[in-house]
């Protein structure tokens, strides 16, 4: 087992390193601004005095590396600095929103994961039948549609024409859980549609790959009943690709959430990011980007570690 821990630790270290490099990228990208933040924010109203005053307030008179270290140190403790527009701390502005976004993503994941795994395995078993072909065209269409297209179609049919769910996901803190689930159903469903399509295709490909391997054919030839081939022979080897598929698609949810939040006016971190980009509120942009990138890297890491844990062959790289 010592071997295994070392492998996992090595992968974790690599993930941490990637995160560090990405944080450097996010911080120093803003340094590339023509002029600097103070000039960009003040814009037309910039006089030499106001620019100098703002630089002093933001600490821009200190060297960039020092500011980066301070920023990173704060970010690790959840302090992302102060918003340039409103002047309030960034962590307060996006804290609740981050929870909302996590809620939405979790809601979508809880629905999407079981459905897509079951459907993916089903289409893999029924491959090259009419059902498989139809599923192929439908999932391809769903993947190819921009998230806002699916979102507005759902609004049109489920909110405007039939009035079953609210079109705008306005939240307040004193709502009951069922009310909350009802309010956020449409954005969650949009995410479910996109992610399910991705997951189904990836599960299908993984299972078909597996079913083509010689040992499955051997099991079939010696007369094992089909359900037993699946449960006893195929499934243990299928966990690795399935875990991989789940983690990768949860990572995909993270980006999908930005567009969906804007469509449904959902008070999440994606919406905050888009607003901050329009207003050029760099501390918020940096904080949101870092959070999104960290989640993305973490989930990719989870996919790799999951694969290492469930597939002994990966523990002995040639």
């Amino acid at each position: 087992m010592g071997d295994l821990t070392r492998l996992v630790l090595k992968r974790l270290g690599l993930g941490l390193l990637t995160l560090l490099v990405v944080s450097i990228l996010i911080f120093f990208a803003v340094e590339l601004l023509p002029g600097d933040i103070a000039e960009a924010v003040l814009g037309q109203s910039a006089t030499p005095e106001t620019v100098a005053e703002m630089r002093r307030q933001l600490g821009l008179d200190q060297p960039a590396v020092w500011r980066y270290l301070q920023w990173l140190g704060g970010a690790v403790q959840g302090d992302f600095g102060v918003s340039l527009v409103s002047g309030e701390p960034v962590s307060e502005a996006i804290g609740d929103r981050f929870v909302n976004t996590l809620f939405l993503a979790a809601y979508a994941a809880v629905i999407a994961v079981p459905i897509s795994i079951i459907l993916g395995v089903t289409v893999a078993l029924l491959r090259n039948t009419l059902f498989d072909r139809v599923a192929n065209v439908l999932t391809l269409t769903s993947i190819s549609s921009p998230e806002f297209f699916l979102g507005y179609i759902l609004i049109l049919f489920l909110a405007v024409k039939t009035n079953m769910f609210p079109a705008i996901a306005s939240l307040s803190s004193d709502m009951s859980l069922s009310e909350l689930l009802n309010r956020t159903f449409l954005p969650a469903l949009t995410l479910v549609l996109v992610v399910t399509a991705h997951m189904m295709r990836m599960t299908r490909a993984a299972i078909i790959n597996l079913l083509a391997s010689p040992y499955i054919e051997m099991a079939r030839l010696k007369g094992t009943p089909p359900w037993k081939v699946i449960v006893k022979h195929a499934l243990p080897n299928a966990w690795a690709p399935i875990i991989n598929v789940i983690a990768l698609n949860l990572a995909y949810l993270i980006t999908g959430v930005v567009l969906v939040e804007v469509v449904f006016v959902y008070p999440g971190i994606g919406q905050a990011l888009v607003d901050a980009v329009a207003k050029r509120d760099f501390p918020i942009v940096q904080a949101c980007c870092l959070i999104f990138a960290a989640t993305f890297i973490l989930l990719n890491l989870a996919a790799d570690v999951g694969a290492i844990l469930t597939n002994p062959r990966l523990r002995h790289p040639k």
Partner: protein
Amino acid sequence: MSVFVIGYYAALIAASCLAAYFNYRRTFMLLFSLTLVSFVLGIIGGTPALRVVTIFAGALALAVGTSYAFKEFLVQIARPNLAKELRTAPLTASFGMFVIFTYAIAGIFAPVIAPHGEAEVIASAFAPPDANMLLGADQLGRDVFSRIIYGARNTVGLALTATILAFLMGALAGLLAAVKGGWFDQIMGRAADVIMSVPSLIFALLMLSIFGTSLVVIVIVVAVIYSPRVFRLTRAVAGNIVVMDYIEAAKLRGEGDWYLIRREILPNSMSPLIAEFGLEFCFVFLLIAGLSFLGLGIQPPTADWGSMVRENATLISFGDITPLIPAAAIALLTVAVNFVVDWMLFRSSGLKEH
């Protein structure tokens, strides 16, 4: 029982009988199960449900017919060995080619096809459709139909430019990395890892917030975000070719790197690269559509599908589907490209799933 309902069931049953008589087993199963489903649907949803099924089936038949005819057309005009390939193409692929062809025509001849200019205000805001305006007017009173046609030129053109740039950068770096190896390969590989570890939309938002949203910036940013994908594929494909004996022979002959790339490696890695170009286009197109939906893409008054959806989204709450048409146009083109890419991948890799 209206004439429509009677005709509907009569047609279905007659078609199933014909299929059964001529021993088309799968067609029969399809038609007859549709008949059985229609009984249930007819009871639950009444005539409207059956009408929806008819319209849907009609649209499907039209699409199948068009793609079949277009395929035959392509087979007729193509050179002999290309025609042989095309003959084996599935209908989805020829449907994709037909759609791409239509978009290309719309984009190239936009000023001729569109009845009005893209920024021309001709009516009051949100005016309903009339003889002059096929789809009505948008929030400023511009003709929606003309703007959709111009959008084919602007949105697709932008995506295509970004894809080509991404492809040139990624493929060149990949080929050089495969040929040179060593530190160049290492640096490029690590840089690609870092770029790919940030979600593309997030990365694009970060860069656009810094550099502003001019067209040049969008093209470069999107190209940088998606070039690592091309880099990895090219590096992998070319890496397999570089170890071949004929490359060794060419090196011994004293050929330079550039000759190796151009005359030995590129011709042998063309087909996966072309398929990748299609896939890449889909990603870039969806990213650019997403950005312009967020108001960070092509700036007004230039017509653009993503921002058109956003600007007219209020109409949806009145049950009007006009704002969805540009979004559907984006989806349709992406599906079409995917269909063609699927066929190309199948052809080039012999990916036969049996």
